[in-house]
């Protein structure tokens, strides 16, 4: 659930709005914008919990999706000192404390869907 809180963090920093142009785990057929997908990772005793994730940007314009993703990358890469991801009331998700947002990868062009929309992705992880 921590990735919903990450979306809230993005919303609070002006990247977009949850359920309008930022989505969790999947994106509607007609929608454009960002969606975030969890990727599982083995956890070891003696290490802190890590949630890996990928963020995809889907947009008609090749450049708009990339620019959107780069603004996310810039925000997160400059947020190493952030300690908390905010609660998301409408999904009953609590705030997460003592988190570390690790830097995101540079963007990858994933491809183009059947409707001609370009998809870009970046990946990162949250230590908490």
């Amino acid at each position, binding site marked *: 659930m921590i990735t919903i809180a990450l979306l809230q963090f993005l919303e609070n920093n002006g990247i977009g709005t949850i359920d309008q142009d930022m989505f969790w785990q999947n994106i509607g057929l007609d929608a454009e914008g960002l969606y975030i997908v969890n990727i599982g990772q083995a956890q070891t005793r003696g290490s*802190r919990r890590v949630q890996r994730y990928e963020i995809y940007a889907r947009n008609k314009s090749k450049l708009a999706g990339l620019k959107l993703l780069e603004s996310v990358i810039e925000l997160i890469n400059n947020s*190493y*000192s952030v*300690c*908390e991801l905010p609660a998301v009331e409408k999904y009953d998700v609590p705030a997460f*404390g*003592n*988190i*570390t947002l690790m830097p995101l990868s540079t963007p990858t062009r994933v491809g183009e869907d059947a409707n001609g929309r370009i998809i870009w992705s970046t990946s990162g992880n949250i230590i908490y």
Partner: protein
Amino acid sequence: MENVTYLGGKAELAVGSLVIEPQFLGDMTVTFQEGTRTSTSLAGTINRPSGQIETAQIEGNFILPSMDALKTLYAEMYEEPTAENLSGRIRIGGSDCVAQVTKPVNIHYSCESNSDNDFHVFAGLVQLNLSLAYNSGDNLVTPFTILAQPTSDGYAIAGAGDLSKKTIWDATTQEWIDAPVSA
């Protein structure tokens, strides 16, 4: 079922009145180690703790935002700029004698609101340990070593700064102050 908690997270380092924020700190290692007293007897070799501290130091890596930032570690070697918006420098060697003054050193988990899990050295001396690797791919990083000096309070404390109330270390005044109420 009770949630098990462990210590961990981003940390910051206060050296005197200056603080290195977590985004500029690499890994750090705190080492306090007692010596060994060895005696040989007919029953074999007996090793006992010596009761004397042999190693008392903090080692780490400083990811430099600028050369000027080296003043955090080497305050006595720092030469201030003569006007605003200029950068200073540290001078290594030279004809002037530089006497280092001990400073309190505090390691604090940045996301914690009090000193409960801090590591505090009462009097630290920063040993000159500058090792800069220039290349095109990495940020400029230097290791550092802070040697803890004995004081009447001991070398260091691991844990709460004040046993009677919640406090947090304030590097500016170099004393523990009351922690925020929510702590």
